[in-house]
């Protein structure tokens, strides 16, 4: 059982359920405690030790069902030759067939022995090391060879040459076909168990590195995956921000307050008060460019905006191209795809005018910016040669705690053509290129932590 459990852990890891050595040990202890006789109990007990989030429970259940689905291999014995009483099923085969276990199993239709032989052969052929779907046919072949397919073929050929052996050869041939099918199914299941997850990981990795404003943007297939990734990042950002507001500085006594507290006790400092450090929860104002020039990245920027809005309590979201509107309501009420579509429909893909949009913002929404606010701009800083209104930018910077600019264009493009990025940059605390998910992640990890002034 040890080996089977280890394989099961591997399948779980492939399905993105983290199984650490400690948990593996726990699982073994669990199995020792509950045994395998009660499938339901066995599953629930393993689930409690191995799956640690609600998502993982779902994945655990699926993996468990696939892994332990040893549905009976259906090997009805090939029909006995007509008109003949059921004798030895090996009748009509050449004498060397007597030495072949596999031939006997096939002729008898002994399903459980075949299943067992297949498990053993699979171990020798290392089927569980499967990584790619293209390996399937090769592994199937190897699995069959390990089981002794060569022998079977030799026996069939020999039987055909034998007088009256054609019938038996046909039956064995049918058995062989069934065996091949079964082996294919087996390998496919192993692939599903061990490799489907790694394929997904590979895709996620590619996606994280893909430039989001590249030609064609993101594959619609990857859209959902991107949303999940972005959401994870936004959540991490929010977590970092929602840390506690008061951190006790242990070891530093607050002399002033301690003395005041000691007054009723005749100056005896009965209650010692420690200094605390106040960290207040900042609010976020996020202003997102959805104009033509960032069209390819707009999807991504809006997804980020949406996810951020979901996880941050105090968040104001705006979108602009020619003019600026508040999109809080849209983001709050709609599902992510619909919300993005709605925002783009309302305001998207027009001529950019940063100056005008900043004007709109300062006129109507400036009161949302105070000394606790972090202002995040998502945009390329291309203003179609209109007045960039740097004075308004300076106003925002002066009021806000910090201003962050995430630009989907690489830095070498900044201030080329109609881009005024370098001029805006002077009024930001951080301005970074951000056009892949990987970069977004790094910014969230490092930039926001180290550069944002407290």
């Amino acid at each position, binding site marked *: 059982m040890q080996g089977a459990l280890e394989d099961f852990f591997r399948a779980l890891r492939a399905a993105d359920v*983290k199984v*650490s050595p*400690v*948990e593996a040990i*726990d699982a073994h*202890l*669990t199995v020792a*405690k*509950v045994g395998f006789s009660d499938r*339901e*109990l066995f599953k*629930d*007990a393993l*689930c*409690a*030790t191995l*799956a*640690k*989030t*609600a998502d*993982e*429970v779902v994945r655990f259940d699926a993996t468990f069902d696939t892994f332990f689905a040893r549905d009976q291999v259906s090997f009805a014995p090939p029909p006995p030759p007509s008109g003949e009483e059921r004798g030895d099923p090996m009748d009509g085969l050449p004498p060397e067939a007597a030495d072949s276990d596999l031939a006997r199993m096939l002729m008898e239709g002994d399903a459980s022995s075949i299943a067992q032989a297949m498990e053993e052969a699979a171990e020798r052929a290392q089927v569980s090391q499967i990584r790619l779907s293209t390996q399937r046919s090769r592994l199937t072949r190897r699995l069959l060879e390990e089981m002794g397919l060569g022998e079977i073929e030799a026996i069939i050929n020999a039987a055909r040459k034998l007088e009256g052996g054609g019938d038996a050869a046909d039956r064995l041939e049918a058995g062989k076909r069934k065996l091949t099918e079964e082996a294919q199914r087996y390998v496919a299941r192993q692939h599903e168990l061990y490799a489907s997850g790694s394929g997904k990981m590979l895709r996620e990795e590619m996606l994280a590195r893909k430039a989001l404003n590249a030609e064609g943007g993101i594959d619609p297939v990857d859209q959902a995956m991107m949303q999940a990734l972005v959401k994870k990042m936004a*959540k991490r950002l929010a*977590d970092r921000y*929602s*840390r*506690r*507001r*008061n951190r*006790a500085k242990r070891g530093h006594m607050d002399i002033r307050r301690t003395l005041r507290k000691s007054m009723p006790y005749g100056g*005896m*400092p*009965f*209650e*010692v008060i420690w200094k605390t450090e106040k960290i207040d929860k900042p609010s976020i104002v996020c202003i997102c460019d959805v104009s033509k020039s960032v069209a390819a990245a707009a999807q991504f920027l809006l997804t980020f905006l949406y996810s951020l809005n979901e996880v941050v309590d105090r968040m104001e979201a705006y979108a602009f191209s020619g003019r600026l509107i508040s999109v809080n309501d849209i983001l709050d009420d709609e599902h992510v795809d619909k919300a993005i579509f709605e925002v783009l429909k309302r305001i998207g893909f027009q001529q950019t005018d940063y100056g005008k949009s900043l004007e709109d913002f300062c006129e109507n929404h400036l009161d949302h910016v105070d000394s606790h606010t972090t202002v995040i701009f998502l945009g390329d800083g291309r203003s179609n040669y209109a007045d960039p209104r740097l004075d308004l930018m300076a106003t925002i910077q002066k009021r806000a705690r910090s201003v962050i600019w995430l630009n989907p264009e690489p830095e070498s493009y900044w201030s080329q053509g109609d881009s005024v990025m370098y001029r805006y940059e002077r009024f930001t605390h951080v301005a970074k290129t951000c056009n892949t998910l990987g970069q977004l992640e790094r910014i969230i990890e490092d930039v926001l932590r180290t550069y944002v002034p407290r």
Partner: protein
Amino acid sequence: MTLSSTAAIKAAPTDVLGSVDALIAGLASVGYIASKRIATALYMAIHLQKPILVEGSAGVGKTELALSTATLLNQPLIRMQCYEGLDESKALYEWKYGKQLLYTQILKDRMGAALADAADMDAAMDRLHGIGDLFFSEPFLEPRPLMKALKEDDGCVLLIDEIDKSDEAFEAFLLEVLSAYQVSIPELGVIKAKTPPLVFLTSNNVRDLGDALKRRCLHLHIPLPDAALERKIVASRVPDIEATLTAELVGFVQSLRTLDLRKSPSISETVDWARALILLNADSLDVEVVRDTLNVLLKFEPDINAVEPQIGELLRRPAA
């Protein structure tokens, strides 16, 4: 490990811990209707001596599970509510500064006498050091929930409620307690539990818990119950309710959960609603009664507004 596990169970009726089914029956006898998965997780927690992390939305009976287990095992329950800013002085121990100061004041006058017969300065210093250590001994220690739980010699149930509300730093601090059932106090050394407590941690998933913490715990996610289980729970919690009314109201609540609501009603709301209906002497559901009592089930104004026009239709739906 196994040795202390038997010690933990010593005080409890051992037969309920023999198997999962016995545990389900035992929990039912103290008024907690557990699904098989819940009972299995609890069974494993007791036998593997691991803390158990219970997740699920508000009101599905996470805290209740700990309370019922304490009753079942006949052990004291020590509860620690987590909140933002909770630190070890509130969770573990604190020195009684006031008492220490008071005692130094009292001793001040006796100090001269105590040191009078010291031969020289060194001897006097030694004696002073001895007194200093006295002030950092157990009589001056104010134990908080975690410490209390470790000091219960006959074992106890420790409930660490809403761990997700605490800070990451505190979570890290818990690791020592949860894996070794011990704490280190700089002045006193390591304090280790004679009998490890049975630890429940509950979480509403306000934030993701660290992997290190999760790894030390068994995990149990309590979902919203299916209709059959919920009927049983209502019947157990509200004994004088008619079976037909139970079926009707559970059916209604179950169909509410299929709607897109800000907060779906959970078990505690169902039970509250059943109690409310009993108080109102309702013996069957009709639109009027449901509309008047909807605020027991739904806690958000938009939800109530969304459901109100559909009440009739929802009531006509066949109970699942």
